[in-house]
């Protein structure tokens, strides 16, 4: 009875909550259901009930915990600074340790093997991509199919970037290790290209260390503490000896910043160096290392990934970047989760679908067919719920495109 | 003189008053000078199941079902301003205090109750019991929003208090608001504490020829009459100048409130504000009116009893969730045209509530809708 793992929700985390309820309106699952047990405050109360030995870790507890998107919108709203995301990872770790079932074991294998192996992932991608265009899609489970609808069509397979080093253009001001990521690497090569180009132009030497692996966010969110620790340890070794560790997936950069939890002192050092690419690029734009376009490209809808906005509190950076590209950034009606939430879309397809539809409706209301999203999961979710004439891209891609276009034009018309 | 009346006069000897002008003749007139005395009167009446008509200034006796009282209880001697705290902007007054007198006192320190502006002889207790609001309700809300505390003598002679003498209070059930517009059905409203508002630095009345869809940001009051519209402004001089310029029309310094409407019959039409413009267009040309846009109240003066048009207007209002209420009429009118019209929802509940305060139903019986 009670907690058994080192990751378990801690008394200080749970006691920080004073039950004021200011988190409730920010919680997407509470908004959908109106149910206290689907709210951050209710989930904390449930964790406390387990901690106090009032209830066992039972089906009800598992249902309540797994229904959470881990979007951490509640954290940003909490005046008592409850580290809700951390406590929820703890609760998930307890569930994994105490209530291991077949589904969870399969997920762990997937997370442990597939996403850590670029080769396997590429293979899976190709097969799924092929399946998507053929009748074979029917054998893919409906939940997975929905997620796949948002995949990028990779017309131009970009070379893997691992192992490469790119020198700074102009005066070097620092060095960056790029987290190639799992999904990003296989499915979002264009974002890497833009990232490397922009970082080097901003004065960074960029290395893509070969020994790196998945950041471990998905494992941590799912309660696979052992997996999360193993992946963190590998990355700490691989991503050392640089000034900054940069990721262009908000979910990954958010998790890197929490490495102290998963890898002790070494983790804390890496966490201190971790940055989301949007922070670094926006910083370079603001101090003039990167240019601002004067051309007017119209409006772009900015979708805020939860792990950027809520977990890292980065709000302005993506807007600065698209503005520099010549777009006019427009906020969506709210900053609620799009429903992708890592594995959530597969575990709770209905809720995920509703949130995805809500988000798509907000994007349509903006009146632009260009959407900026700084996280691959969100990008896929949003694309899956929009018509195919919408373009969903990472802010750095939009910016890099604008720079490249300008350079091409000035080459053609040297005047 | 009947023997019952003589016996009653003997019983109530300590409280007897001179005949009250305008009150039904034949009833015993009393004017208790304290709430304790008033409780005595009601206890006596309750014991003998004798109907009591409460009488303030007599200005709103035309509203509601007719009462045939054995006793008329005048509040004329409950006439002291008990406590005025200008700094806290609250005043405690007994029921029989004339509004005009109270306002004159309060104006010394630039304050107002925002009760009706042309009260005549109306008393604080009378206006509250009848739920009558002034024109300034557009800006400050109706009379019930002034009510902080009430001292009630229930129909069976209990002295109870609800609310408190602070401007913001959620301690216990809101008896002060329940008493507003209760027409004595809970008992005698003996004493109240009211929230005050400051009188503005500058006051102005702007007169326009035509109604408008917009009179600017929250004017103090707007009165639409058949041939003119008056907009009342309050605030700093600079604000009033700016608003006058926005409105146009002609203006006079100070607030010039219209006199009560003349006519054989007085009506109060109460409808959702959005319906106001429509119905004013259809108002018979012989009727005069004062319409309050944004509030939804139309005070109407009818020259000759016209049951058909009045009934049609009542049906129209009631079918839209409103009401057409008699506010003044010759006695004969009430038998052919009901004082209230349709009985509101929740009448049973109203009866149960009233029974808890006035179990023998002796104070103003039949005055409320549904003969309550």
């Amino acid at each position, binding site marked *: 009875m009670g907690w058994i793992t080192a990751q378990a929700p801690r008394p200080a985390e749970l006691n*920080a*909550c*004073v*039950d*004021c*309820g*200011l988190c*409730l*309106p920010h919680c997407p699952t509470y908004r959908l259901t*109106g*149910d*206290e*047990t689907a709210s951050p405050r*209710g989930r904390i*109360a*449930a964790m406390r009930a387990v901690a106090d030995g009032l*209830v066992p870790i039972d089906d*009800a507890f598992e249902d*309540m915990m797994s229904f959470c998107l881990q979007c951490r919108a509640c954290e940003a709203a909490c*005046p*008592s600074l409850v580290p809700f995301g951390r406590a929820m990872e703890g609760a998930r770790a307890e569930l994994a340790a105490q209530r291991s079932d077949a589904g969870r074991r399969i997920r762990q294998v997937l997370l442990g093997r597939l996403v850590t192996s670029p080769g396997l992932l590429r293979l899976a991608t190709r097969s799924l991509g092929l399946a998507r265009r053929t009748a074979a899609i029917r054998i893919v489970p409906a939940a997975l199919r929905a997620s796949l609808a948002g995949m990028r069509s990779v017309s131009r397979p970009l070379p893997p970037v691992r192992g490469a080093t790119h020198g700074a253009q102009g005066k070097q001001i620092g060095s960056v290790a790029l987290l190639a990521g799992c999904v990003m690497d296989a499915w979002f090569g264009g974002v890497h290209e833009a990232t490397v180009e922009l970082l080097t132009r901003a004065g960074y030497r960029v290395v893509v260390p070969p020994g790196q692996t998945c950041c471990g966010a998905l494992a941590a969110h799912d309660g696979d503490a052992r997996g999360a620790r193993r992946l963190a340890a590998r990355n700490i070794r691989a991503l050392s000896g640089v000034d900054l560790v940069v990721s262009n997936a908000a979910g990954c950069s958010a998790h890197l910043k929490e490495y102290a939890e998963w890898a002790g002192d070494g983790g804390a050092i890496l966490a201190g160096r971790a940055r989301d690419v949007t922070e670094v690029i926006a910083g370079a734009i603001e101090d003039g290392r990167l240019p601002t376009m004067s051309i007017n490209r119209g409006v772009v809808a900015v979708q805020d990934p939860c792990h950027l906005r809520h977990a890292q509190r980065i709000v302005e950076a993506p807007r600065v970047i698209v503005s520099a590209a010549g777009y006019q950034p427009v906020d969506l009606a709210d900053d609620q989760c799009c429903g992708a939430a890592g594995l959530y879309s597969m575990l709770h397809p209905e809720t995920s679908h509703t949130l995805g539809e809500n988000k798509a409706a907000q994007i349509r209301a903006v009146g632009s067919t260009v959407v900026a999203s700084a996280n691959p999961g969100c990008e896929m979710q949003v694309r899956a719920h929009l018509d195919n004439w919408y373009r969903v891209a990472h802010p750095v891609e939009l910016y890099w495109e604008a720079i490249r276009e300008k350079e091409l034009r000035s080459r053609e018309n040297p005047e | 003189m009947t023997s019952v009346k003589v016996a009653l006069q003997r019983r109530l000897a300590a409280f007897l008053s001179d005949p009250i002008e305008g009150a039904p003749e034949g009833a015993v007139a009393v004017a208790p000078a304290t709430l304790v005395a008033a409780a005595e009167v009601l206890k006596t009446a309750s014991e003998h199941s004798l109907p009591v008509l409460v009488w303030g200034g007599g200005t709103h006796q035309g509203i509601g079902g007719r009462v045939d009282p054995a006793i008329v209880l005048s509040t004329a001697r409950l006439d002291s301003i008990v406590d005025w705290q200008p*700094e806290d*902007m609250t005043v405690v007054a007994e029921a029989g205090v004339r509004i005009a007198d109270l306002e004159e006192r309060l104006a010394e320190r630039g304050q107002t109750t925002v009760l009706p502006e042309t009260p005549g002889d109306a008393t604080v207790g009378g206006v509250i019991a009848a739920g009558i609001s002034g024109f300034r*309700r557009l800006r400050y809300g109706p009379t019930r929003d002034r009510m902080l505390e009430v001292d009630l003598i229930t129909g069976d002679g*209990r002295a109870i*208090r*609800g609310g*408190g003498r*602070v401007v*913001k*209070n*959620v*301690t*216990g*059930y*809101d*008896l002060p*608001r*329940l008493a*507003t*517009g209760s027409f004595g059905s809970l008992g005698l409203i003996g004493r109240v504490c009211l929230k005050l508002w*400051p009188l503005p630095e500058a006051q102005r009345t702007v007169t326009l020829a035509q109604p408008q869809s917009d009179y600017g*940001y929250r004017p103090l009051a707007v009165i639409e009459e058949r041939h003119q519209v008056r907009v009342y402004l309050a605030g700093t001089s*600079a604000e009033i100048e*700016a*608003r006058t310029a926005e409105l146009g029309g002609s203006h006079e310094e100070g607030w010039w409130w219209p006199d009560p409407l003349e006519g054989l019959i007085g009506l109060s039409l*109460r409808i*959702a504000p*959005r319906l106001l413009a429509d119905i004013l267009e259809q108002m018979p040309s012989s009727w005069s009116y004062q319409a309050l846009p*944004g509030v939804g109240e139309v005070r109407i003066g009818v020259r000759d009893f016209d049951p058909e048009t009045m009934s049609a207007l009542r049906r129209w209002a009631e079918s839209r*969730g*409103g*009401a057409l209420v008699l506010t003044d009429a010759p006695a004969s009118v009430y038998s052919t045209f009901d004082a*209230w019209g349709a009985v509101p929802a*929740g009448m049973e*509940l*109203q009866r149960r*509530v009233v029974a808890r*305060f006035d179990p023998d139903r002796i104070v103003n019986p039949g005055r*409320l809708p549904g003969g309550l």
Partner: protein
Amino acid sequence: MRVVTFVRELQDLLGEERVLADPLRRHVYGKDGGIRRGDVAVVTLPATVGEVAEIVRIASRHAIPVVPRGAGTGLAGGAVPTSPSLVVSLTRLTEIEVDVESSTAWVGAGVLNLDLSKHTAAFGLHFAPDPSSQAACTIGGNVANNSGGPHCLAEGSTVNHVLAVELVTAAGEVLMLGADAPDPVGLDLRGIVVGSEGTLGIVTRVLVKLTPNPPAARTLLAAFDRVEDAAATVSGIIAEGIVPAALEMMDQPMTIAVERFVGAGFPTDAAAVLLAEVTGHPAAVAAEAELVRAVAESNHATRIRVAADQAERDLLWKGRKAAFGAVAQLAPDYYLHDTVVPRTKLVEVLAQVYDIADRYDLAIMNVFHAGDGNLHPLMAFDASQEGVLDRVHAAADEVARVCVAAGGSLSGEHGIGLEKRDLMPLVFSEADLDAQARLVEAFDPDRLFNPDKVLPTGSRCFDMGRPVPEGIWI
């Protein structure tokens, strides 16, 4: 057995998903924003007024008490069941229907206060009551508690903005009390339902009056070296004949806590901070803001800051509204009081409040709606310390007595609930309380709805001896 049939009947009505009967979920619904925990038999999540009425009929048949619940942000235990009860969560009643021409809206009880104002912003209208919990609390909860907020100073509390309520009665009937027409005929029962804390019936829909958004607003922050000067400024402003939209005060410990949370540049070295807002016609706002500044200066304000734009205004208000939660960073538990005194007694009462805290060795900070004399002394403590809860209780009790003795009242906006029920005899006589009890009886003869709230019943039905879980006492 009885409970089993009862739950089955509810499930037949609502389906299994909207009837929560497992021990964990019942536990989660056992409490609101206050400290007390109660006993939940089953939770229902109806989506229509018809379902609410049917739930009430089922509960009535089984004689199981019914406790309505909104967002559970209340601080007086109003949504905490005292005996195993059926909790009716009204959060799914979220429809809004605006009548722009009449400036009114029919609003489901589960609509969040701030959502309503966001919804009506397109029409230039808002719902005036703005409790600090407005982002989370429901309109139904506002009606139950007659909620206030900083902007009640000029606009009045919830009751001033409710034109009608749709009420499910103890008999399971649906009654509409009030109307969109002014002065509905008959007794004004809507007025008594507002603030009745769910004891008279379940409010499912509310017709609210909407207030035009002011064309101009100015927010000023003034710092003082002495609390007395801040209080004198409040009186001075009112004496000048203006009623600002809001007039809020924080003492130094509170300012420090808030600043740590919002980082809005609140002066943490000031003994008291006054937040004043004037709204209205642009010409009026400029003049009144000048007046406020002049009064503050003549009362020795050490610094006056005027919010430059909407963003700065929002930030200052965010700081004020997050005050209670922000305190949780200082100590794991806190008790937030809510009392009212005549405005002129503020300084005198405040001195006594500090003295009481000293005597009980408790850290106290103050944030209050100074304009209407509504105090919120807040005691921060650690419930795990031996005997501290007793001291907090005793101090809270004394504070209430001091306020009542100064001509004040027990609660300005949080309600009586369980928290202050037994203090009611301080302000009301037996006859007064008896009259209120009779009134309740007229609505709910069997005390089906939220029994044991508001009025003292002589015995408390819930277990006071139970250890307080993770001590949260807002």
